[in-house]
């Protein structure tokens, strides 16, 4: 009881915000996994693309126009550009490789090659912008441009905004996948690729649209990431292991596993650091070990993830 009462508000708020960000990142990764059968190493870089698109739009488009800039004005462009990058990676790399019958490991390595390419492109653009226009293009925080609700501070507003964003995006995904024709087609393609093809579904086009969603969601997550971590070309890549952990803990095969995984990882990361490591005198850098330990245990004993455990429990209950 003491522990529960002892939780202070900023720590709790940060824990939930980080959870929300990880959920958005994990959602994208799970969609990637469902459509392409691989966890992509270039996933973090999509988030970086989103963060940079938002930042550069504010600097070069909104500020010259004299608009009271905030990141939400940039979201349409962020989703479009990051979505386009994601579709491009699918069309240019993954689809041809899958057509040639590439296995999982070659696809994962190809996604790593993609990481190199996207990462370096972002870095080159950042260098170019800095050298040519004299605009600071690294180690900036986007927190400055977060929308602040009247009467609150940055932390509370971000808490509200990220929570709304997660709710809206998961609700939209649910509607899209379960209430529309596209959703039926997409779930059919995922469940049984050959049957879907046999009834005349253009599976590759369906997956290309799924990649557009991957890019859009991940790009938005990247903008929120850049509010807490300085924006550099390594923004997403450095946190990739955590995104993997979120997806695996929740369950790679379920879209909503990411929601579960995000909260488990986000809360354990921040609370673990504040309430277990600090009192024990362990350096807070060790907080990363907590989710890593989680995922190692999950992989060893229940590779289907928390969502898989829950659904199998539900099924057992029905019987």
């Amino acid at each position, binding site marked *: 009881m003491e522990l529960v009462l002892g939780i202070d508000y900023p720590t709790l708020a940060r824990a939930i915000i980080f959870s929300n960000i990880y959920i958005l990142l994990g959602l994208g990764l799970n969609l990637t996994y469902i459509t392409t059968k691989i966890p992509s190493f270039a996933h973090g870089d999509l988030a970086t693309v989103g963060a940079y698109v938002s930042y550069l739009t504010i600097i070069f488009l909104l500020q010259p126009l004299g608009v009271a800039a905030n990141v939400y004005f940039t979201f349409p462009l962020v989703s479009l550009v990051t979505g386009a990058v994601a579709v491009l990676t699918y069309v240019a790399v993954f689809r*041809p490789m899958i057509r*040639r019958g590439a296995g999982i490991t070659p696809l994962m390595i*190809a996604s790593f*090659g993609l990481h190199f390419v996207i990462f370096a492109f972002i870095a*080159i653009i950042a260098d170019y912008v800095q050298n040519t226009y004299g605009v600071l293009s690294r180690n900036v925080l986007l927190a400055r441009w977060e929308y602040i609700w009247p009467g609150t501070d940055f932390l509370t507003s971000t808490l509200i905004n990220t929570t709304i964003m997660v709710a809206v995006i998961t609700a939209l995904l649910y509607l899209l996948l379960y209430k529309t024709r596209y959703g039926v087609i997409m779930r059919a393609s995922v469940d049984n690729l050959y049957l879907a093809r046999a009834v005349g579904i253009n599976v590759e086009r369906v997956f290309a649209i799924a990649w557009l969603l991957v890019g859009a969601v991940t790009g938005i997550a990247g903008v929120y990431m850049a509010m807490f971590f300085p924006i550099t070309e390594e923004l997403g890549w450095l946190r990739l292991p955590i995104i993997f*952990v979120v997806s695996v803990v929740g369950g*790679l095969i379920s879209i909503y596993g990411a929601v579960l995984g995000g909260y488990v990882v986000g809360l354990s990361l921040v609370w673990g650091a504040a309430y277990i490591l600090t009192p024990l005198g362990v350096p807070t850098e060790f907080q*990363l070990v907590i989710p*890593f330990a989680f995922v190692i245990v999950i992989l060893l004993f229940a*590779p289907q993830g928390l969502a898989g455990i829950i659904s199998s429990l539900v099924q057992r209950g029905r019987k």
Partner: protein
Amino acid sequence: MILQFDLNLFIVLFRETAVLFAIYGIYVLSLNLEVGYLGLPQFGKVMFLALGSLAVGGITTKLALMMYAGVNPLSNVDLYCSAQQYQAVAKINQLFAVSPLDGLAFFLLSLVLAAALAGVFGILMSGPALRLREEYLGILLLVSAETVRVITTYTPAVACGVFGTVIPDPFAWMGDYRSWGYLAVAFLFLLLVFMVIERLANSPFGRALRAIRDAETAARVFGKDIVKFRIRVFATASAIAGIAGALLVFYNNFVAMSQFIPLLTFVAWAMLIIGGTGNNVGALAGVAIYYVLDRVLSIYKENIRQVANVDPIFFQYIIFGVAIILVLMFRPQGVFGEKPSKTLSRRILERLRREA
């Protein structure tokens, strides 16, 4: 701008590149044993490089300090790491400078320990490798490698944490010829490892590995114990990677555990994919291609900067990224494809049959 050709500078550049080529060659050869021959998604390779370095920086260096310099680094880790270590190690170096035997003993003990530590860890990691599917195993190895890095980096008692730890130079007695001598040592080990792995790959053991990779069920039907093979491969490849890690530490005479980021795993993969999986010559060719491109770009660095006004290192990333993707798409076997494994020549086989 005409590049001024400085012979001495060129020789030094060549020598340093050659040492790195040898060390990474060993590292990539061990990766090839796992990836090329057994088809494991080894995305945690850097872990074993780190453990090899850890055996030197964290264990044998402490032993040497206690034996030769009378310093116990563990009695006051902070003081030792921030101030004492430079003088203490310099003292040991003076001793090694006059006594090659002590130096060599230290060197060999370090290598044995590095191989043992990494090998034991490899056996531990082979447990999950037996049960998990490809992509899950890849993630598990990646995350385990990160866990090892975080724990060893932020525990100062291991290898002075973020300060990094200075390593005594076991070849101090070579004096001015140290760099050349170390080049010879590194190549000696590369040759040794190459011969061992080539031998393994062309033995019945190696053919069994390929059989398991290509058709696991069929291999099992023919009585191959897949569990045993995987454990052996993990142990061997990890031990060899541990040796590469130890050699890397002795090359720099310094180690900071924070250097073992996942990127090192993927650089090795890039070299292997471009060179050719399942072919040891190809693996080494991949390392060579990587370093030649790296050095050529670094020589023309300033010229590129004048044209494009960005850091040229990023062009290198793009070149490698595109190269990996193109190789995987159009030539999945790499520059040097896999060769059928060598068996005895037909003449010898027939003679053996007649004798039998």
